[in-house]
């Protein structure tokens, strides 16, 4: 019992194990798996990252003129890095940084906004495919 009381007394002078989290920033270890970042110039739009992504956090929007637009949801992402490994140009077009994503707030419309975008991407693809098909048929009939 005396030993435990001595231990308890000594604990007063030992360093504190916990972090004062919101007041003090937590230091992330080197090599922390953070946000996926994207370089538009190097991207060849092969859509490989979109296909391998387990939660479907990367989507491409198909514009009518044939261009594609990259969109990424950092709150859906599980930071596994599978997209970076699938990318034909890693470090240039797609890479994993060490920055941590801040928590989502209501204004960012994390759920609803993303669902709208998801539906829009799907629709844009279908429309594009339909337009392409119609164009082909038209070309054929003209020939």
């Amino acid at each position: 019992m005396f030993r435990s009381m001595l231990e308890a007394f000594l604990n007063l002078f030992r360093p504190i194990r916990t972090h004062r989290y919101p007041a003090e920033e937590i230091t992330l270890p080197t090599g922390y798996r953070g946000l996926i970042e994207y370089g538009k110039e190097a991207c060849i739009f092969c859509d490989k990252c979109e296909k391998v992504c387990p939660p479907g956090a990367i989507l491409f929007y198909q514009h009518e003129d044939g261009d594609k637009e990259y969109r990424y949801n950092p709150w859906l992402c599980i930071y596994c890095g599978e997209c970076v490994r699938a990318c034909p140009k890693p470090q240039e077009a797609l890479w994993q940084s060490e920055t941590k994503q801040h928590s989502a707030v209501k204004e960012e419309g994390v759920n609803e906004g993303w669902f709208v975008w998801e539906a829009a991407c799907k629709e844009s693809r279908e429309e594009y495919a339909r337009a392409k098909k119609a164009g082909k048929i038209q070309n054929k009939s003209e020939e």
Partner: protein
Amino acid sequence: MKKTIQIPLGSQHISLLEPIRFKFECENEKIIGVDADVGFVHRGVELACTRSFEFKQVGYVVARVCGLCAITHSLSYTLAVEKLLGYEANDRIKYLRMLMVELDRIHSHMLCLAHTAENAGFEALFMQIMGDRELIMDVQEAISGNRVQFDYISIGGVNRDMTPELTALIHKNLRLLSDKIDALIGLFDNNWSLSLKYKGVGVLSLKDAYTYNALGPLARAAGLATDVRAETNDFPYETLGYQMILESSGDIHARNFVRLREIVNSMEICRNIIDNLPVGEIQEKAKGKPNGEAVVRVEAPRGELFYLVRGNGQNMLERVRIKTPTFSAIPAMMEVFKGSEYADAPAILASFDPCMSCTAK
């Protein structure tokens, strides 16, 4: 007149970490019957694996079955798929995978010890063990890049390599932890008030362990020599200093001791892995699509984890069946409750290391 009273424990209770409901039939303080309901956190992972995700993505899905043994789940699934693809990993990959599993075992056992202490009424010991556990969590975070969801193992290898700084960190933290585990062993063995709560409480006899198919530390505490690490040869455990840890009394004290001694053994294995890490690639191409059926058993921290994967040569799998050790431990747990005091129920429950998200999936 009815002699017994019914006392419910859960689905929300101060001693429970996750929702599980027990209905105890008590006669004074003695429990004479028990009924358990474990399905509160069912998420339909098995169905999602076959409907929503392709086989290359499923490894990341099954890792979400359980936060503590994430690495064992993804490892078992990956091994099963690699069997179907006819691919065998090189030694470096095997060693790195083993290292993560053993680190996982250390911190999972420490969590269980902490909760056993807490549920027996020793909050300070709980805090102390959880604080020491951070040493291992830090190592795992440094290796895999994330604290809980490691996503370290993928089909065909592992995602990150070992560096000299990591090796130094692992050696340092294991050395620090080693002293603390020695102190804990002394504490769990000699402390008088801990022995009141643990010794002779919640006894699972060898015969019961055999009948009710107990596994993992639970069975080894009762003297039943069952360990997948010794039974399969997917990993070179024998060469890296693995020892079967057996106790005979089968009470909470024995379970705690199996866990403590396994931590010591796992630390030994980790050191051996780090010192004898072979040279080689960490990621190799595993081509093809899974066709056929494969069964894999891996020793998770809580016992034998069983995976069945069936594919038909397409991107989507036909069936993924997961049998978790916590689910298999429930019949034995119900048996142990019968005949013990109601006040001991939380400590017994914690000593079985229940994980409801594993159990219900």
